[in-house]
């Protein structure tokens, strides 16, 4: 009986601990990183990278910037941003910049995407 009560109390207090850490103590949460940016902000980040790439043509620097969004596949970050820009109706000049960057990234670090947008 004691063991059962011990387990029940332990589970309740464990749940309370998780709730405190995730909900009641938001100040203790880690600050978000660039990888946590919302999709539209991610697209803007990639667009800035594309604007810089269009001016300097430095694909390695562009790759390093995109790794901040997706450490495993910066190319995927570029492709997804290009797709988002098309869906969201970005100006054609911006879409072209993103497509140029995505193409350059695909040539530099090719990836295969299932259901590529």
């Amino acid at each position, binding site marked *: 009986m*004691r063991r059962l*009560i*011990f*387990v029940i*109390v*332990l*589970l*309740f*207090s*464990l*749940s*309370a*601990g*998780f*709730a*405190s*850490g*995730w909900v009641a*103590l938001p100040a*203790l*949460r*880690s*600050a*978000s*990183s*660039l990888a*946590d*940016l*919302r*999709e*539209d*902000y991610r*697209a*803007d*980040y990639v*667009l*800035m*990278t594309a*604007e*810089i790439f*269009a*001016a*300097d043509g430095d694909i390695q620097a562009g790759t390093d*910037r995109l790794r*901040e969004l997706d450490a495993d596949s910066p190319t995927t970050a570029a492709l997804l941003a290009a797709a988002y*820009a098309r869906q*969201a*109706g*970005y*100006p054609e*000049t*911006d879409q072209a910049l993103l497509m140029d960057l995505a193409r350059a990234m695909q040539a530099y670090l090719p990836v295969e995407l299932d259901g590529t947008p």
Partner: protein
Amino acid sequence: MSARGGNLYILTAAILGLTAGLLASVAIWPVRPAASSPRELSTVGQNAYRILIARAYNASGDSGRASSRLTLLDDGGSAAALSAQAQQALAAGHPLDEAEALARLASALGASQPGSTPATLAVSVELPTASSTQAPEAAASIPTAAQPAETHTPVPASPTASRTPTTVHASATPTADQPTPSLTPPPASGSSFTLLERSTECERTLERLLRVEIQDRQGNAFPGQGIEISGSEGLQVFYTGLKPRAGSGYADFRMQPGGVYNLRLAAGSETVASLTAPVCRAADGSTYEGSVLVIFKEK
């Protein structure tokens, strides 16, 4: 007593569970917001975002878009925050072009915020190998914009976003090895600017001030240009555009009493040698050191 001892296992379970749950939720599996805005980024993330905005501005020349992007950050897009970050980047030994990009954007925004409240920014830049008690002085009055509310629609989503390409001028890349203190700066890789004027002025308010103005080919003010100055304190760098009220192509440096300096532009110019404040006589017969004015123009 025995009842308390008998219930101790409940307290133990509660403390164990709470501690384990709290630690796991904070340290091991912290909650990350599924989708953040730039304002929710860490300080490091916001600084990286700000640098990217500045570099994108340098690439596209679209200050309106850069300004909109900056409003997404904590500082709300103030020129002072950009200048402060430029200063920190230089002090931390980050690439010179990073500081230049930030300074140029700060200058562009400072010039476009005429109705804003001026904020004082002291810029002190000293290269690592230079041992000095004096630093370039650029007490800039940078206007800061009123903090705009965050918009939840990112900048590029707006189909009306403007794009006004402008010429981006090449700038010198910093050398990996900084020279030791010397009166003679190392030779520039090329000469992009020509000396237009070198003069002295006797004015109390400009005492010992070395003033530099840089113009582009059209004679317009040229912000974000690095100016290397060497003297007994070593080699130091300061930038145009950090005093928007004096002009975006203007920078100044407070000389030491009796100091002698050589000056040239980081982007390439002839070296202006043996600069020293002139000895002036006031109306009451006392003497003071006046100012020096040097003007460069892009070739």
